């Protein structure tokens, strides 16, 4: 059951400061409304994963690992591989997070990232089939939040794409019943590059890439995921209030632009 979350007590004065700043075209960390925090992407940190990327978005830190393993396809898609996105919002990353099974926030995060990858057909699922209906390759995208200072969706989206784009895998084949691996590393077959761009409505103003303090006072949140051709491939509104029709139009166009900027950085980092 989902219920209204208990936000940590933030002093009214502090809340007012954040809102007033945004109302005056400023932000608590001196950015403009439409600019991201500093973005740092490092790939390949986890040698045991097929792909990995650590992303610092300001003080938010996310690590994503990609593993490719052999498994069984879903009965209704016998000629496709399997993609699984999982997120851990563990208590290491924030006093707001608790131990235990994935919270609704973790599930939402994972599903939004999943939708962006899946709907843009980023991973070439057909090429992951070893034996139709019986054996396919399963791509696990595991999102590990290390430090939560706001906008985890974009940090995770960026890290997931960087990890996928830099992933290397052995070519698997079936010999009789057994999976054998051929020598030589190949890239994971990637056809698209979805990038999530998240906005927060603070007071009446919309800012991109909200920092934690802004998330704690925002009225609503919107994530727009843009694929490489500039089309929308996923959206998710969050938060207790909403957006006007005009706001949505503006935001979608800004998302296209911001996604392109971040995509260039991601692909550059993934190439090393």
């Amino acid at each position, binding site marked *: *059951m*989902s219920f209204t979350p208990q936000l940590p007590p933030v002093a009214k004065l502090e809340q007012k400061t954040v809102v007033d700043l945004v109302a005056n075209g400023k932000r608590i960390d001196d950015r403009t409304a439409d600019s991201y925090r500093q973005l740092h992407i490092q790939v390949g940190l986890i040698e045991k994963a097929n792909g990995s990327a650590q992303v610092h978005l300001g003080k938010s830190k996310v690590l994503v690992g990609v593993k490719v393993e052999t498994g069984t396809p879903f009965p209704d898609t016998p000629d496709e591989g399997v993609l699984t996105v999982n997120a851990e919002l563990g208590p290491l990353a924030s006093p707001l997070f608790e131990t235990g099974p994935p919270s609704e926030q973790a599930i939402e995060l994972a599903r939004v990232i999943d939708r962006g990858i899946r709907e843009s057909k980023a991973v070439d699922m057909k090429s992951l089939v070893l034996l139709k209906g019986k054996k396919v390759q399963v791509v696990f995208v595991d999102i590990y939040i290390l430090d939560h200072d706001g906008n985890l969706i974009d940090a995770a989206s960026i890290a997931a794409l960087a990890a996928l784009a830099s992933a290397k895998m052995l070519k698997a084949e079936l010999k009789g019943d057994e999976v054998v691996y051929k020598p030589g590393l190949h890239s994971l077959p990637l056809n698209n590059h979805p990038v999530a761009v998240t906005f927060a409505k603070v007071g009446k103003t919309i800012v991109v890439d909200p920092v934690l303090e802004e998330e704690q006072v925002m009225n609503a949140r919107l994530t727009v995921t843009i694929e490489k051709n*500039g089309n929308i*491939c996923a959206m998710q*509104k969050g938060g*207790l*209030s909403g957006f006007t029709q005009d706001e949505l139009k503006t935001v979608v166009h800004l998302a296209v632009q911001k996604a392109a900027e971040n995509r260039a950085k991601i692909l550059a980092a993934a190439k090393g």
Partner: protein
Amino acid sequence: MPEPKQPEKLIDDKGIRIDGRRLDQLRPIKLEVGILDKADGSAYIEQGKNKILVGVYGPREAHPKHIALPDRAVLRCRYRMAPFSVDERKNPAPSRREMELSKVIRESLESVVLTDLYPRTTIDVFIEVLQSDGGSRCAGITAASLALADAGIPMRELVAACAVGKIQGHMALDLSDAEDKYGEADLPVAWVPNANLVTLLQMDGILTTNEFEKGLTMALDACKTIHGMQQEALKKKYLVIKEVAEEREETEVVA
């Protein structure tokens, strides 16, 4: 049950969809208010083959206590699919999809409920999808608004919801199961008309920004229509009650 087969075309040469609708046409909608005995408020919606029952309890004492908020009621929401509501039986354990939808549905309702009138309590919204046919989250929101009103919970206004999608390259209103499955995109929207706030918005598939804008307009127009139906349904319920009240002495009514 084996799933229905993929239709050859989703739209025919005359622009008519597999269930006979035009692109901008809603499925038939039936709304009923106050049909449960134990719940404080309830509503039932049929939209296409969707059959959804919503029950509301509250404001009532928060349980467990630690979830209570000092300055407002906690709104709780559960979206749940009956095991028999879909072609292939759904495992009764809550799925990740159900958990996500419970959250976004709750967030679509939060801004209209006057929760600050009932600090330290909970208002519980249980959405039971008895049969699902595409657009169940939107139909659930439409019915949940009515159930909240039926429970006598003070609200700024009703929330109406409807999805729009893309099939065979065209934006089309209120996708059915087959259109959702074999179409190119789905865009569920919830709208608070007077505040002019979109309080639920999700999308999956591929849309150009133009298609998004067009689709959003179609969805909001449909929400307006549905909002009218919601008000009719509430009136009907209260008319019935009034008549009954004149016959008997109490205002209680069997749905």
